[in-house]
């Protein structure tokens, strides 16, 4: 379990995270939602130690984040940011093999390669595993990066807007893969997501942030209500039930 206690963060004079306390339970998909500038990505980056916190405490399985060795953390928690762009001439397979660095420090063993193969198979990348990244579409690249995180084989997987720039088909594909990671492999997934319908259909727990604070959190059936969403986004929503899912209509 990841525990966040009284977390604060300032950028210059602007308080982007203010007294946030949440718990992220194991074996679930937790989604962070909220308007732009609410502090979702900042919170995710602090949990994954990419940026330093100003005050507060973050523990992963009761271990303080700042007191753990980075190499050990890399076997426990992985993070994928929203823009992954590299000028390196890398094939998909080579990129995925980077995921094994925390274990082998660059000298991959047979076990490492087995994990790489599995990750490639898991993300359906076998056909394109020897292609270079710059020859691939956005959706394929995103899948390659997720495969790298899968090869890293961490208990906690954090993704910052994994659906960014993806079309509907690929977005659904990625969300299904995340669901399988949780249901089949018992991973814990935390995502920052803008499309609340994806959050509604695929997550177990939703945390809503606004102006650096947690406004509401709960299961999708508690969160996806027009009154709750209005409080978060300051706009009107129609929530309809469809096949046991709550779908928001807000386009008109």
């Amino acid at each position: 379990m990841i525990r966040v206690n009284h977390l604060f963060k300032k950028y210059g004079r602007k308080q982007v995270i203010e007294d946030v306390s949440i718990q992220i339970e194991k074996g679930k998909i937790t989604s962070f939602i909220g308007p732009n500038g609410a502090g979702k990505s900042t919170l995710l980056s602090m949990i994954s130690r990419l940026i330093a916190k100003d005050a507060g405490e973050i523990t992963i399985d009761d271990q303080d984040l700042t007191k753990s060795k980075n190499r050990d953390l890399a076997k426990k928690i992985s993070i994928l940011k929203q823009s992954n762009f590299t000028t390196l001439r890398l094939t998909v397979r080579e990129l995925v093999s980077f995921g094994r660095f925390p274990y082998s420090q660059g000298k991959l063993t047979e076990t490492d390669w087995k994990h790489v193969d599995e990750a490639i198979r898991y993300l359906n990348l076998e056909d394109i595993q020897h292609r270079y990244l710059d020859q691939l579409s956005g959706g394929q690249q995103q899948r390659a990066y997720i495969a790298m995180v899968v090869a890293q084989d961490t208990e906690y997987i954090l993704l910052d807007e994994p659906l960014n720039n993806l079309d509907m088909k690929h977005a659904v594909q990625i969300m299904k893969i995340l669901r399988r990671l949780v249901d089949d492999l018992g991973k814990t997934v935390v995502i920052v997501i803008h499309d609340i319908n994806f959050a509604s259909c695929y997550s177990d727990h939703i945390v809503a942030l606004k102006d650096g604070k947690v406004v509401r959190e709960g299961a999708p059936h508690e969160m996806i209500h027009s009154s709750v969403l209005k409080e978060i986004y300051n706009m009107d929503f129609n929530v309809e039930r469809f096949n046991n899912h709550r779908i928001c209509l807000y386009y008109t």
Partner: protein
Amino acid sequence: MTPKAKTILLTAVSAVVVTIYLFLDLGGNWDYALPRRIAKVLAMILTGGAIALSTTVFQTITNNRILTPSIMGLDSLYLLIQTVVIFMVGSTTLTMMNNHIHFLMTVGIMILFSGVLYKVMFRGGRNVYFLLLIGIIFGTLFQSLSSFMQILIDPNEFQIVQDKMFASFNNINTDLLWIAGALILAVTLYFLRFAKYLDVLSLGRDQAVNLGVEYDYVVKQFLIIIAVLVSISTALVGPITFLGLLVVNVTYEFMKTYRHRYLLTGSLLISVITLVGGQLIVEKVFTFTTTLSVIINFVGGVYFIYLLLKGSRT
């Protein structure tokens, strides 16, 4: 061709170039000419290696293929030191001055400067680009100070300063070569402890942290290594960091890999080929009427215009 085969090819080519340089027109003066030529070749391998290594690492930690360590202002600082010495005590004292003292003083000041710069920069936990920005500002300041003093001094003295502005292998002091060699070797050994992180660092900061690299610590070590290597090679032969830009880019084009194991050896070999080959041209074609860095800057400039044209077409 695999990167391994390319490395072997480069090794063969550099061996051939070095052999030609050592034995071409040697005549009967083996005892006199050969040790001098060996010293020059050694100096070229040392500086070439130091520049290639520092530029490759620098580009990896900044994730930028057109930067060289000279952006941190070390080249300008070198020229400033030389100008100040001539300005204060005159060129006669400089030429009379003990070479060791002069060399160690120059290296010392340059390393000290980088140390202070890093110390101030890293206290606030700022990023590498901020450091570079400060480096550029200091570099410009040093340059302005140098040109100010160069305007004031006697034109004959200025001639001496001007000599120092271009790298040259024609007057290598053998004693200094040993000191520089030992220092570079020590730094390289220290570097090898961190070499495994380079591939991961080239994915960028976020990925490196994600994959368990103690990013700030490792980058700081690399920056120190770069500062020491650049200081030593610059103090030994003069400002020559443009060579790094040329060599590292050629290496990327030629090796077509992201693995630093091959990139580092490749850039070392290519820089030896460039330096020794260039020196061969300076000595045999131009009969010492020009210096090596002029040739390297010329060839490098042409190559970059080619890269730009090629890049704009695709």
